[in-house]
């Protein structure tokens, strides 16, 4: 005979210190053990997909900032790539390199947050987060120099980027690149070898490669499960085919490996950046778009708007959180007919129940932290 306590339901969220936004997790508990987990989302649902159907292609770029607000660059990039695919635009070389550089800087900033917040979820009282913030601030400074914004960047444009980087950008970026490896070493020392973090995250929330693939998991979570899949390598966009880097892959697919993969990816991003800063060519940063696609619309005023041909395009990139895809259907009008975001945060949540049933409340928090969701992107 076993003694069981009465199962009871705990709502983690929508207002809770570690749901990373307004996300709600309904846990049914037997004591501290989770017997059922249900996700409730939509508290940040802004209906972007509907809104985008009434805005021109350029007007939609700011929306993509506001999905994954911790990685606005990659959001921009995926969207403009989808539109470029639809319009068959050839992007100038320098713009491709700039996109690559920005995306990698954004990856470092985003992973730094992920790693720091993960340590916070493990119970380290703010210290790792604050250290990560220090590096992220420096990167945001670079973004500010390039485009004037720090968080919602709106930097990418259909056919290139909004403007070239100022001359003093390069020296500052190089200085940052020189500083970062030392810091990363420190973090790896303090966090990766931390006995308590290892005890808290080893063997928790394990996903096998088969499970991860079947549950459509992508990004660091998929790679932590041992699948070497990185869109940057598998289907290089931007200038990724010209730089040398490795895919970081985990061993056991648990929470700890997701953490390790993110740390390793920050290193790889540094590697890419070091090469990219040397290899970036001079030239225009915006494609010249023919009048065939740029036509006046509406009455009585007639501003110019892109009119992609009828058809559909699906472009996906490797955002810090995983495979970020934009599916755009055009009917020849200046606004997308259908605008769908395949958001990695949202889809990476699908195995949450699988991972957390049988664990304790504390584990559920760590697992949720390891998924690294941004609620803006989950709910869109």
């Amino acid at each position, binding site marked *: 005979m076993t003694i069981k306590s009465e199962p*009871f*339901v*705990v709502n983690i969220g929508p207002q*809770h*210190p*570690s749901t990373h936004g307004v996300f709600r997790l309904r846990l049914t508990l037997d004591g*501290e053990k989770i017997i059922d987990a249900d996700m409730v989302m939509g508290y940040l649902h802004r209906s972007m997909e509907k809104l985008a159907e009434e805005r021109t292609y350029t007007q939609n770029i700011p929306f993509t900032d506001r999905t994954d607000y911790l990685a606005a660059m990659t959001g921009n990039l995926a969207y403009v790539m989808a539109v470029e695919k639809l319009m068959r635009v050839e992007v100038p070389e320098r713009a491709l390199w700039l996109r690559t550089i920005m995306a990698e800087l954004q990856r470092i900033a985003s992973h730094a947050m992920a790693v720091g917040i993960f340590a*916070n*979820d*493990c*119970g*380290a*009282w*703010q*210290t790792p987060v*604050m*250290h990560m*913030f*220090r590096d992220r601030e420096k990167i945001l400074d670079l973004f500010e120099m390039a485009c004037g914004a720090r968080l919602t960047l709106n930097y990418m444009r259909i056919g290139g980027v909004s403007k070239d980087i100022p001359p003093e950008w390069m020296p500052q970026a190089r200085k940052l690149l020189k500083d970062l490896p030392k810091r990363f070493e420190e973090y*790896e020392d303090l966090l*990766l*070898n*931390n*006995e*308590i*973090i*290892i*005890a*808290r995250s*080893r*063997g928790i929330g*394990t996903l*096998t*490669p088969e499970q991860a693939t079947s549950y459509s998991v992508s990004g660091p979570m998929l790679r932590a*499960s*041992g*699948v*070497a*899949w*990185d869109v940057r*390598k*598998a289907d290089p966009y931007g200038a990724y085919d010209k730089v040398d880097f*490795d*895919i*970081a*892959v*985990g*061993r*056991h*697919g648990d929470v700890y*490996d997701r953490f*390790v*993969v993110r*740390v*390793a990816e920050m290193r*790889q991003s540094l590697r890419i950046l070091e090469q990219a800063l040397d290899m970036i060519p001079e030239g225009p940063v915006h494609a010249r778009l023919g009048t065939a696609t740029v036509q006046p619309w509406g009455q009585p005023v007639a501003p110019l708007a892109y009119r992609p041909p009828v058809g559909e395009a699906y472009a996906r990139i490797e955002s810090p959180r995983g495979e970020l895809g934009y599916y755009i259907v055009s009917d020849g009008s200046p606004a997308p007919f259908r605008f769908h975001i395949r958001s990695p945060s949202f889809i990476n949540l699908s195995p949450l129940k699988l991972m957390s049933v049988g664990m*304790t*409340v*504390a584990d559920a*928090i760590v697992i949720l932290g390891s998924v690294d969701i941004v609620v803006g992107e989950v709910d869109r």
Partner: protein
Amino acid sequence: MFLLKGEWYDLRDLGNTVGGLLDDLRDIGAPDWTIYVTSSLIGAVGILLWTVLSCLAFIWIERRVVALMQNRKGPNRVGPAGLLQPVADALKLLLKEAVTPRSADRVIFWAGPVLIFIPALVVFAVIPFAPKMTLADLNVGVLFLIAIAGINTPAVFLAGWASNNKYSMLGAMRTIAMLISYEIVQVLALLGPVLFVSSMRMGDVVAWQDHFNTWIFFIQPVGLLAFIIAGAVETNRSPMDISEAESEIVAGYHTEYGGIKFGFFYQAEYLAGFAIAASIVTLYMGGYTLWGLEDYVPAWLIFLGKLYTVFFVYIWTRGTLPRLRIDQLMAFAWKFLLPLMLINALVVGAEVLIWRENDIDATPALLAIGAVNLVFGAILVAGWARFLGHGTGKQRGQRAILTQEVGAVHFTPEPAP
């Protein structure tokens, strides 16, 4: 200096001052009970004042120090260098509306903070701040420390239960499980000093350490370690702060408390921290003595200095360490610390017996005991950890595999524990 001995203006021991006052009272022919009441009132008010001031100071220190560890400034706006921030916070808490949730059990909800605050304060009665500065030097002082800290347990439970909040309930349950487990460890750890001193009076423990010019810390390193860990549990300090784990159960058993009721919990937590630090200082680190320096410097200053140093260690861990999980914490208490402390108590008993029976000189005996305990403790800790599967290299961090091969799978199932 020695002219001062025992006069009322001898500030090296505030007990002298109070003693002088009581003598005056006696001289003017006051009845015995007035003297009794006056002395306890002075002691109680003194302790209350000291704890409140120390709390305020340490709230500031903790916030500044942790801020330093986290690359930020900490409170720096109210008063010079933000010194008045804790005062402002306290005022804010006092002025806030004391909300009672509708579904809470009103009486117990109100009783919770009080029940927690009183024992946290009462503990200081047996702490010897200086030779004559003990409010009540009970001859079961060591037991008193643990017994009074034990009152916390039902108080925390009642606070959590009365809130009628699931986070509170979880927090309360965690706290109880934790406190009860670590209370046993604490008692067993305290057997060490008590067996050496063969008295449970706190004053005697300090006197013993003074007499042999040693700190019990040197002859009981493992015991002190266990006591520090148990103390961290009792005061909800990181890495054992799971009962109010912010990232998991919001604020644990005091989630529903606001205003000054929360203030009570907050201060009780600090008081518990001071009490643990005071016990460590008294029982393991020589109390108010510092190898003769206490004759010149006020003894209570030495005591407070040591106390704050020990308390600082708790702040330090709070700024650096992540948190353990409840089952890991319980396993650590029952599987690791408890057997270790049982063996430790056995070893100490044997040592004391051999020492007493054979009339060995104090110095060689203490040196031998210290060496034996250190080596034995180290072997025991390492060996036991290895036996439980820790520290065998398996726990080391692993780095990611780097590959260029797209689509390959590098998965090895986690070996079963």
